[in-house]
């Protein structure tokens, strides 16, 4: 990192005053401090939450750890964890299925109305969550959606659909950037060597997009885990059926149960960190092996 590349030194005229490469330490200290500040802020925030769970400053009492664990061991909470994990994973897979073709088409092709399509793809991101839930509800009052409304609205599929609507928009953005960054040259070479478009895509482009896909997946997963605005409206908050972790947090907050809400939030953070770290390790390892 400290060496100057030969190409660069060749193009630059040698200065009359000999160039002295100073210490890199201030640079790294500066970046480290700025970056570290944000990381520290996140960690401290969680630490404060954890502290607040175990200690109530208003009455200066410790919450018995037993009470916290009992709350987390409740079958409703366990179901919410279970549902959250599975629905988020399903949402992630669906998002990738949809985001890959959209991202590819948007990145590689020009077509009439592309600007409009591009804007439409951003709508789920800009739409306030409550409105998104409400819009889904309204949509399912019309055929053909109405025909399956009984199996979707207020049932588990509605949780996944609500998560998908938002998560997929983020996945599309990421996949598009990913394809943007992959040079079309290799793909074109493959095509001239006799590959069909689909062969070129699966053999040349997709392997290169692995990291991007991984990022899209984690983004979609994390986004769906935190989703609750549309879910609360479109899926309701039926315990043991459509209650996911963020719904629990919201409902506990509404009841004024700060300790319970924070405990569930921390549980959510722990679960998310475990899954995301595992996914990254797994994803990157495979990338290296390949």
């Amino acid at each position, binding site marked *: 990192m400290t060496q100057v590349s030969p190409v660069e030194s060749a193009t630059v005229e040698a200065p009359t005053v000999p160039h002295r490469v100073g210490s890199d330490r201030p640079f790294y200290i500066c970046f480290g401090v700025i970056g570290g500040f944000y990381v520290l802020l996140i960690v401290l925030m969680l630490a404060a939450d954890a502290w607040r769970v175990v200690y109530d400053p*208003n009455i200066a009492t410790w919450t018995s750890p037993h009470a916290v664990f009992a709350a987390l061991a409740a079958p409703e909470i366990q179901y919410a964890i279970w549902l959250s994990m*599975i629905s988020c994973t399903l949402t992630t897979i669906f998002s990738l299925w949809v985001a890959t073709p959209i991202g590819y088409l948007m990145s590689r092709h020009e077509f009439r109305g592309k600007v409009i399509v591009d804007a439409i793809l951003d709508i789920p991101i800009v739409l306030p969550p409550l409105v998104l839930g*409400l819009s889904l509800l309204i949509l399912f009052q019309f055929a053909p959606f109405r025909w399956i409304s009984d199996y979707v609205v207020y049932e588990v599929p509605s949780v996944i659909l609500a998560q998908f609507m938002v998560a997929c928009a983020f996945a599309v953005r990421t996949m598009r950037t990913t394809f943007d960054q992959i040079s079309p040259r290799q793909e074109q070479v493959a095509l001239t060597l006799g590959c069909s478009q689909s062969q070129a895509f699966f053999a040349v482009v997709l392997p290169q997009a692995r990291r991007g896909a991984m990022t899209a997946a984690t983004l979609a997963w994390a986004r769906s885990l935190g989703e609750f605005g549309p879910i609360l409206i479109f899926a309701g908050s039926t315990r043991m059926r459509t209650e996911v972790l963020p719904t629990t947090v919201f409902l506990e907050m509404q009841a004024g149960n700060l300790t319970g809400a924070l405990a569930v939030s921390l549980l959510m953070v722990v679960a998310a960190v475990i899954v995301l770290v595992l996914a990254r390790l797994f994803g990157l390892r495979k990338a290296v092996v390949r």
Partner: protein
Amino acid sequence: MRPGFVHNALVLVLASLAAVVILVLLLIWNPVASSTEKAESITVYCAAGIRKPVEEIAKAYEREYGVQVQLQYGSSGSLLSQIEVNPTGDLYIPGDDDFITPARQKNLVREMIPLARFSLVLAVAPGNPKNINGIDDLLREDVKLGIGNETTAIGRKTAALFARTGKAEALRATVKVVKPTVTEIAADIQVGAIDAGFIWDAVAKERQLTIVPLAEAADAEAMIPALVLTSSKQPAAALRFARYLAAPEKGQQVFAANHYEPLGVEPWAERPSITLFSGGVNRVAIEQTLAQFVEREGIDLNVVYNGCGTLVGMMKAGQKPDVYFACDVSFTHDVLNLFNAFEDVSSTPMVMLVRKGNPENIRTLADLARPGLRVGRADEQLSALGALTKRLLEAANLYDAVSANTRVTSPTADFLVNQLNASGQLDVVIVYEANCSYVRDSMEIVPIDHPLALAVQPIGMGRETRYPLIATRLIEAVQSDTSRQRFEAAGFSFLHPARPAETVAP
């Protein structure tokens, strides 16, 4: 290498498909959810008079769901005594509704589902050979009349009808024969032993006797109910069969084919699904009641908790919940057309919530005007609480002074509680007492002594609900005495009067 890459792509697609299948299966399998109770058999005490339709329906139910229905027949009265002596079994289907009250008084039964109706009619031989056209014809010398014994339902209804005509004495005197059952009277008409008899319309139609329309018989109806026994250990299974009996596309067809007038309105579903919209603030008070209700009924209850403003928005967007439990009466005004009458369930007073020990020594509403105090209030536009707070402060002539002290306004009361709880930036917030159930030990509640400091929570049933009986039972569960305790524990006052015990007939 190219085929290999394409192969990889195929593997990728297949692997993700397989993952989806596995995840969906996991969702369906759901290890945490409690397994639904699947009864193997239920015991039904059924009045002998309605044996035919009930037996037919029970057989169809057995075929369809593999649940054995053990039917025990007898007269309605003797079955009731049997249940009283030996409280076992699941369902009681008496021949008419006169048995509901005694069964309720003895606390032997709980839910009641109306199955069918039949009426008392005057039946004559086919074609009406004796030309009997009214009550007065019965008093003719040449007309022999048969009626039922007064210990039976038919006898009692006939006696009541006689009383209504004002000619009871004369009619009683003209009676040729008194029989213990309806079928015997009908048989006597058929063989010509008597010329006319008071029997049920269903029996008359089945035997193809001619029915003489009587103005006096207009109200002489009886209803067949299905009653879930208090002693039932599987109420959900009992209710399921009762709902099957009452379902228009199931049991009701059989009742109709047997000449009964069907009364069932709720469409058949093995697990009916109904939707409740509830203000978030009510959740703590009703959650347990709802869980027990679902368990007992064997239904799916979709619950949507949210701020009442959002709920009203959802209803305006076309949602039609079966039941709506609002945070305050003011949140029903815009959706009145969607619901039958609302009933007030509970109320909660507005209070001042302060830190433990009340460090600022806040005692009355006037203390909120003290300079330097940091007050949190609900938003006047966004929430009912905010509007109520404004009304209260204006009535107390404190609005301007308290506004000057207001440090924060929040859209809902729970925000305020959490804001006071989590930060040191507020001294006092005005909230509902019901918002404070979780902070009772860590905060202090200062009551507001003012008649305007009150919110009232009403409950109502959707006009278009497909399950009016289930919805009614849900509302009753919320209004029950068990529910009252939960409301009171959560800081609400319960407004619904305890249902008076049914008065004992003299």
